[in-house]
């Protein structure tokens, strides 16, 4: 079993070292670019390595340090950006043929904020086309391989960023999470992946999949780094009307508060039964035992509405996607296939050639769900189910401070294994979807591995705007799990 998993230096250590002038950002950058050059052929995490941009940004960081300035909390930290976020002048593909050579004339707010915090963008990473998938196999440019076992998927849709972090190609990756697309690949690659409260991080410049569910978040090696990157990105943005006003929370300060006094709620529906691999459940329980040994109070909570959550998700997300992806019509940018008849024929030929099977499937599903006569039965009903999920979670949070579950019902599966079975593939998101429907924050961190050495993820959920609490609990779990082996 080919294994390329490796930890990079933690981002906060790199930043500290660059800020203090001990290390130059340019040296850090060169080192990681070399690592990418050496290993990425086998992993396929990157769609584009932005060498020039990275070296220029690193030089700018070094110049700031040399001038006695502070480049920011992510000084010189190499980051990989999922290729559904825009960077001015760098092609954004969404791992689709339909965008052609499209180059955005603007940069996503989240990326802009990382750069102004001193981060260095080393490349754009692979994903399931338009973030639709759970394996990063639905990419027009080929799959990404899991560094823990190259014959397996890294999860998805942010599989490129997750694999890049897991292989030590970068200390930080950015992902987007619509139904679990950060947390599930984090779980399958043994990294930390975090989805903020909906509206915490601006979506401006993130190519929309499902607008009411999408959130950008970090993939890192440890909880501390995730908090650091989150802190740098979070905050209201006048360009995103759904971004929420700043709270002034300091998540960094909460990291060291420890677990004392925190009550964990184990989500009953996600901790037994069908579809869960025994090794996943066993590892999850072992982690609970460790918490218990530390004196953490653990209770069981129930979210009865999760029975309908997957259905709600697979109605809302495709419905919004069908509308969001209408603009890829061959008129203004990207691919055009023109059989030489009329504009509708051109639109249809372009979309037929430019979209992959999963994207077409979801566009079809979403168009159907919104078409005349079905709106109320499908989209509106799914939105009411969101309310049920929120109500259930509110009840659970009256019994516990944070909730927990395995992140993914399974460890990384074999490439190709689920490609012809969309329903089974959709089950990958079973434990992650409720947080998207409710808009709540959640984080996945590695709690163990199966006998083959495949990572298993532990998910911590918190109420809306509860990032500080969530990071505190996750840091506590991370410490309880103990020393990690790459």
């Amino acid at each position: 079993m080919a294994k390329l998993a490796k930890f990079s230096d933690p981002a906060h250590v790199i930043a500290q070292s660059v800020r203090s002038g001990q290390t130059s950002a340019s040296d850090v950058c060169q080192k990681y670019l070399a690592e990418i050059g050496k290993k990425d052929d086998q992993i396929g995490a990157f769609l584009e390595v932005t060498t020039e941009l990275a070296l220029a940004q690193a030089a700018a960081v070094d110049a700031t340090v040399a001038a006695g300035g502070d480049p920011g909390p992510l000084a010189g930290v190499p980051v990989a950006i999922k290729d559904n976020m825009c960077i001015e002048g760098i092609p954004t593909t969404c791992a689709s043929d339909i965008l052609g050579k499209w180059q955005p004339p603007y940069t996503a707010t989240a990326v802009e904020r990382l750069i102004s915090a001193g981060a260095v963008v080393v490349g754009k990473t692979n994903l399931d086309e338009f973030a639709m998938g759970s394996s990063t196999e639905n990419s027009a440019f080929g799959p990404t391989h899991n560094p823990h076992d190259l014959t397996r998927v890294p999860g998805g849709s942010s599989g490129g960023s997750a694999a890049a972090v897991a292989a030590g190609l970068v200390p930080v990756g950015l992902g987007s999470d619509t139904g679990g697309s950060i947390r599930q690949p984090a779980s399958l690659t043994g990294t930390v992946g975090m989805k903020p409260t909906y509206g915490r991080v601006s979506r401006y410049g993130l190519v929309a999949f499902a607008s009411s569910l999408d959130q950008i978040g970090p993939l890192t090696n440890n909880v501390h780094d995730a908090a650091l990157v989150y802190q740098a990105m979070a905050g209201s943005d006048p360009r995103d009307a759904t971004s929420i006003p700043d709270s002034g929370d300091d998540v960094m300060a909460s990291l060291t508060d420890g677990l004392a006094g925190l009550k964990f709620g184990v989500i009953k529906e996600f901790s037994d039964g069908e579809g869960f691999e025994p090794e996943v459940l066993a590892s999850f329980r072992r982690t609970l035992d460790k918490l218990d040994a530390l004196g953490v109070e653990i209770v069981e909570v129930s979210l009865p509405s999760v029975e309908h959550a997957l259905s709600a998700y697979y109605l809302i997300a495709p419905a919004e996607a069908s509308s969001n992806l209408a603009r890829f019509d061959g008129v203004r940018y990207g691919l055009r296939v023109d059989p030489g008849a009329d504009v509708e024929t051109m639109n249809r030929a372009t979309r037929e050639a430019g979209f992959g099977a999963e994207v077409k499937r979801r566009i079809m599903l979403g168009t159907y769900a919104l078409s005349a006569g079905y709106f109320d039965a499908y989209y509106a009903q799914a939105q009411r189910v969101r309310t049920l999920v929120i109500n259930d979670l509110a009840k659970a949070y009256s019994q516990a401070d944070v909730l927990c579950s395995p992140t993914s019902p399974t460890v990384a599966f074999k490439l190709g294994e689920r490609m012809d079975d969309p329903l089974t593939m959709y089950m990958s998101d079973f434990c992650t979807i409720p947080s998207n429907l409710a808009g709540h924050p959640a984080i996945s961190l590695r709690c163990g591995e199966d006998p083959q050495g495949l990572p298993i993820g532990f998910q911590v959920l918190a109420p809306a705007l509860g990032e500080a609490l969530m990071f505190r609990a996750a840091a506590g779990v991370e410490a309880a799990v103990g020393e990690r082996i790459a």
Partner: protein
Amino acid sequence: MTITRDDVIHVARLARLELNEAEVEMFAHQLSDILDHADKIETADTSGVEPTAHPIALANVLREDVVRESLARDVVLAQAPAQEDNCFKVPRILE
């Protein structure tokens, strides 16, 4: 919910997709399966439940009526698959 081939063809036209024979067949099956699953959502008791559009209830998020610079035309048109007279060129439109 059974999705017929005709349903698939109708929806494909709404969605501006030109599906081939094999895809029509495949989607008829897969969409039926997925919707069979999704249809269970009907059984969720949502009487008296308001839909949630956004988890955090914001209102009146507005911008001031201020003009900012537009994009340079050559930047905009550089991305166009076809152009003429500084406009985006498309095949004829059938009404």
